[in-house]
């Protein structure tokens, strides 16, 4: 598979001297959903704005469809659809009027524009509400039309910056389905999110960013394999993990029980079961747990609060 986007050694410093992006590089293959994960202030939005041509990088280069991106506004305008983190629409105008405006900004006209408006309205499930002002829409509907505005020109790369913040499960599910459909149609997607379960559900590959640097990158399964260990979850009345358990990497309290991580999950399960049988504690839960992206994320970025 060809790389649609190549990001190479990008550096961006803001006027205050804050280093937002520090020599980041990665490649995004055609037709995949690439996740950009990271805590607040990690540099995700800055990176997405650089890829979308909104701000310029101080150093490094980006290649889109084998062409250098810097200063090539036509390349960006034709092939990139940027969906900002905030809903950026004219609330007094109808959904259709907003789409008409954005379509014009992407260079569409006449019957082609009309056709595309109908298609994207269908795609986001808002055909029947298209002639109502955006201010009358629910949060989820606004998010959907916000995405629709970036799809009018059939971009090859769609950049979605936290598109599901603060919406209902139905709208979230609809957005997920749209993304899967876009992938099936060959569109490449860059998806930024705080929600690890979203990344697990949608992303084929991902990069975890912290303090402007990539701390993990690759296909989802590889990142999990590299950075997470299988674990056993135990919940038993009055039971504490014994210190002599073999091959344990980490033990942590979780919910009402304990999460015990180790290289050999079966051995761990065996040892814990034995201990529970011998000690006679009442067991409420004992299960193998798959490595989760959430635990990898917390392990790599730490638990410290990031309030930007």
């Amino acid at each position, binding site marked *: 598979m060809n790389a649609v986007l190549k990001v190479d050694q990008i550096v961006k410093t803001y006027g205050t001297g804050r280093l937002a992006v520090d020599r980041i590089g990665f490649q995004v293959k055609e037709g995949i959903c690439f996740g950009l994960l990271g805590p607040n202030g990690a540099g995700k939005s800055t990176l997405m*704005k650089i890829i979308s041509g909104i701000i310029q990088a101080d150093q490094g280069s980006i290649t889109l469809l084998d062409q250098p991106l810097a200063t090539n506004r036509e390349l960006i*305008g034709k092939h990139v659809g940027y969906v900002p983190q905030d809903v*950026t629409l004219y609330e007094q105008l109808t959904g259709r*009027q907003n789409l008409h405006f954005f379509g*014009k900004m992407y260079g569409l006209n006449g019957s082609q524009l009309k056709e595309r408006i109908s298609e994207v309205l269908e795609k986001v499930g808002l055909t029947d509400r298209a002639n109502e002002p955006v201010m009358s829409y629910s949060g989820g509907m606004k998010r959907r039309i916000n995405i629709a505005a970036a799809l009018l020109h059939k971009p090859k790369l769609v950049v979605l910056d936290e598109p599901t913040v603060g919406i209902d499960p139905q709208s979230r599910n609809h957005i997920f389905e749209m993304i899967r459909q876009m992938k099936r149609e060959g569109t490449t997607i860059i998806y930024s999110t705080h929600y690890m379960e979203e990344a697990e559900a949608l992303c084929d590959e991902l990069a975890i960013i912290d303090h402007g640097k990539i701390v993990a990158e690759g296909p989802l399964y590889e990142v999990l394999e590299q950075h997470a260990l299988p674990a056993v979850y135990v919940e038993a009345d009055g039971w504490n993990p014994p210190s002599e358990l073999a091959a344990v990497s980490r033990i942590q309290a979780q919910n009402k029980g304990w999460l015990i991580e180790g290289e050999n999950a079966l051995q761990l399960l065996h040892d814990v079961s034995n201990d529970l049988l011998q000690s006679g504690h009442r067991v409420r839960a004992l299960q193998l747990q798959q490595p989760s992206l959430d635990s990898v994320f917390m392990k790599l970025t730490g638990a410290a609060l990031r309030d930007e």
Partner: protein
Amino acid sequence: MIISIFAKEVRLIFKDKSTYFWLFALPILFIVIFAAIFSNLSDNQGEAIAQIIPGYTVMFVFFIMISMVQSFLRDRESGMLARLRSTLMPPYHFLLGMWLPHVLVLIIQSTVLLGFGYLVYGLQLGNVLAVIALVLALAICATGLGLALSMIASSLNAAIGVVQLIAMGGAILGGLWFPFEMLPDAVQAIGRFTPQYWGLQGLQSAMINGSGLNVATVWQAVFLLLGIGVVGLAGAIALFKRYSSKGL
């Protein structure tokens, strides 16, 4: 793309109900009240009308600067400007597309106010072509200044203060409230540097029936107003990068 931005902005302006109050209802209310007061005080009602209606038309024209600042701040703070940078829209299309609707608004406002004066108070329009030229020049002057202010204003409240200073200060000094000749010499000397003075002098020269068209005053007013407007526009173009970089 300029036409699309223009059409969108016109739509937004006229969808806002408060537009009709600030552009038409309030100026007409001022005209009606002050026409009633000064018509009783003056022996010559025609003179009072020829002072009040063009005077308040010129004064209210400059308040467009507030809605210009509001529109530009809205698009920057909502992230719209940043989003549009990822489209094919050239930056100067945004500037022109946002500016021209306000010129149109002022043409409509001036037409309504002068038309109201003509229909209700029998205001003499004199040389209509000269009046049109002056209205256009006034619109370019006020919106040129408004565009420059929009590029530097960091908040609406700060901009309102500046606009009040320009609009009210200019109205007093430029003789919009009282005949210019009645003002003290020192005020008159300063007043000649205000666009409001030239706007009113030009309109009165073009309109007052009987005295004939003072072509020199009209042209002088048109060129001075256009000059101020062009300086404002040039300043806005120079400051556009500063304005847009703040929203990224």
